[in-house]
């Protein structure tokens, strides 16, 4: 060191790390390119589209009844979301008012689905940080709500409960009693998770102060769902733009939007757990106040020309179906915006500045659902773009190495 000019500032090499598209942390194909300096993430890019199935095009060739089952298969976790939301969109378009009992049963399905989805998320969050025991427990308790849904609809996942003009299955008294019992059990378990499980220190250390999403950023990136509510942004379609029995639930005055001002993953976790308990109470209220009457109204297969924007608060956030009908039994255009899609931009923000090790839990914190998103999503062009940054030749080789095909030594 003779002169100060010769001194070099040593910065860690910038390396581009791909996560996915096939990765154990992601149960679905999606790809995230993280640019890292040492262990810190300095940039994140989302590349999805491995799941693009062209549902919007398919929808234009099917009748309304068939689309109900098609949109149900957009996402296996929020199937009642899309199914019910499309059903209500077609009802709005046909300008029919469905019976109250149908509204209640549809809302009940939605809320049960929210319970199962949030418990699932909690389990996945535990899994992402290697807390497999709590993962097992949450999923064991999730079986209770799965059983309830199976009891109600005849299938564990794709419920096919809704039809244009009402619901397909009724709630008998027996079923109601079984559901009330199951709800009691679930509430007890969820209180345990609320009070104990998420405060296990090793878990809490991984979610506390990680993946910060300040309120202003959450607003400017239009985050939705628990992601936004965990950052103290009051976005909840159930209370802002209620449809179906949510009007009655809101008028009952017993329920209010759940917000947290923590702005980190812990905030999102707490919001989800509390929302699960709220949903359990909502289900109980719905079951206890279930009105009598028919469960469906006949709607003619051809729906008059109309355009409607149906919104519903899915477990992950706001789900939008923009339906344009043209007087035939097939829609002119169906645009679906799944909640995860609205959260990508905010998620890229939460990843920046964090550790690589936190990437899976941060990704999971928005409860990403690629299958929801990918009818509309983004795809990376070529593997070449992986070369964008790097100094360390070994690491470059390692990154490109995954592009080799085939990789077997004969």
């Amino acid at each position, binding site marked *: 060191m003779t002169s100060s000019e010769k001194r070099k500032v040593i910065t860690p090499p910038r390396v581009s*790390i*791909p996560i996915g598209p096939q*990765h*154990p*942390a992601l149960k679905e194909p999606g790809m995230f390119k993280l640019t890292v300096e040492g*262990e810190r993430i300095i940039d994140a890019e989302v590349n999805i589209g491995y799941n693009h199935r062209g549902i919007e095009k398919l929808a234009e060739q099917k009748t309304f009844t068939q689309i109900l089952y098609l949109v149900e298969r957009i996402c296996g976790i929020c199937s009642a979301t899309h199914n019910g939301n499309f059903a209500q969109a077609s009802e709005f378009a046909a300008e029919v008012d469905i019976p109250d009992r149908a509204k209640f049963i549809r809302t009940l399905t939605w809320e049960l689905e929210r319970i199962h989805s949030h418990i699932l998320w909690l389990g996945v969050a*535990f*899994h*992402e*940080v*290697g*807390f*497999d*025991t*709590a993962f*097992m*427990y949450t999923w*064991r308790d999730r079986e209770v709500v799965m059983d309830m849904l199976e009891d109600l609809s005849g299938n564990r996942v794709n419920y096919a409960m809704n039809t244009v003009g009402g619901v397909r299955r009724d709630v008998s008294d027996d079923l109601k009693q079984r559901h009330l019992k199951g709800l009691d059990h679930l509430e007890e378990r969820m209180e345990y998770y609320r009070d104990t499980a998420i405060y*296990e220190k*090793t*878990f809490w*250390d*991984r979610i506390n102060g990680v993946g910060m999403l300040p309120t202003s950023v959450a607003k400017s990136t239009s985050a939705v769902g628990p992601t936004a509510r965990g950052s103290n942004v009051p976005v909840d379609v159930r209370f802002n733009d209620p449809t179906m029995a949510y009007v009655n639930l809101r008028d009952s005055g017993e329920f209010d939007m759940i917000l947290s001002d923590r702005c980190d993953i812990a905030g999102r976790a707490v919001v989800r757990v509390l929302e699960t308990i709220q949903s359990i109470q909502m289900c109980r209220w719905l079951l206890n106040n279930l009105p009598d009457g028919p469960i469906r109204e006949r709607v003619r297969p051809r729906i008059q020309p109309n355009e409607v924007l149906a919104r519903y608060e899915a477990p992950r956030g706001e789900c939008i179906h923009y339906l344009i009908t043209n007087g035939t039994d097939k829609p002119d255009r169906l645009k679906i915006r799944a909640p995860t899609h609205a959260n990508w931009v905010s998620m890229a923000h939460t990843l920046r500045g964090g*550790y*690589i*090790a*936190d*990437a*899976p839990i941060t990704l999971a914190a928005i409860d990403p659902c690629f299958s929801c998103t990918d009818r509309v999503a983004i795809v990376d062009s070529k593997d070449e773009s992986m070369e964008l940054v790097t100094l360390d030749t*070994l*690491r470059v*080789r*390692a*990154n490109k*190495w*995954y592009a*080799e095909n085939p*990789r*077997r*030594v004969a």
Partner: protein
Amino acid sequence: MMQINLLTELVFPALWILFFPGIFFITFLALLWEWMDRKVYARLQNRMGPLHTGWRGILQPLADFLKLVGKEDLTPKRADKRSFAAVPVIMLILSILLCMFLPIVDLNPAPGVQGILSFEGDLLIVLFISTLMAILIVLGGYFSSSPYAQTGAARTGMLLISFEIPLIIALITPAILTGSLSISTIMNTMLGTGGGSGLSLAYGWLLIIPFIVYIISLQAELERIPFDVSHAETEIVHGWQVEYSGKKLAMIHMAEDILLVFGAGMATTLFLGGPFLLELIPLPIFQEFGLFMASNWFGALYYTLVFMFKSALVILVLANMRTLFARWRIDQIVRAGWKVMVPIALFNMLLIQIVLNLVFPAIGVV
């Protein structure tokens, strides 16, 4: 004369090394412990674990091992092929070698037991080899030249620098107490069996802190939850072993299981009194019993069972730890290592020195 020598100096030791407390027995224990670990893990998670393979799935680890042996062995194109293949072999050999130092049972009719390999200073060799294992893991990760494997290797390195030190300090504590660097001498001295004077119970409580430090560091050394960052499945797939398959993977799994045997065995040997149970009670009749056992053939059986029992207890604790926690981030682990474990271990050393040199002479404990 030559004939007898051949038998006692060649055949018996060979059998000794190959079968009874040697490779065969160690492998058996390794499979047993893995089964137990998995069963306890499953049971605490309110499920069953392996069930349809043998009695309650007891043959499951063996089935896994055999299946992996029978599978196709792939080598990634980009990997450094020879080193890539060498790592699992060296790992397996070294882990078996480590277990050779465990005093379980021996042919010597005198009181006290010795390992198959046992000499003054073997504790240092053991510490050296156990550090070498971590370095092997790092090498294995780098030789497979996959980003996940390299990240896993880097994390293993971080783990090594943060938890190797408390581990070593914890293991050195009994050596300080007894003034010996031979594993079997330490154990026998502490019990008063190996011809030494024996440590009274007044010394026993001094081992509690190092025991806890050892168990936690062992969990880190074995890369189990909450320290499983180097093969965290949701973060970096299988970490450093992601590219291994077939026989190599079988060897790696076996080496990991054998390390479990070794870890539990060291805890048993240095902190829990080794293969002795009743002799620990300082009454003349039990001392007689100890002498009787040491001079009889079924003493070997007794020693083995006691050793297995105590190791099983350690495995239970380890399995419970694995169930109880989430995985820590690497920086949190390093922080825990340097800010908590190392100070505790050092404080314990200080405490022992004070107690041995100031307190005991003052109150008259020998």
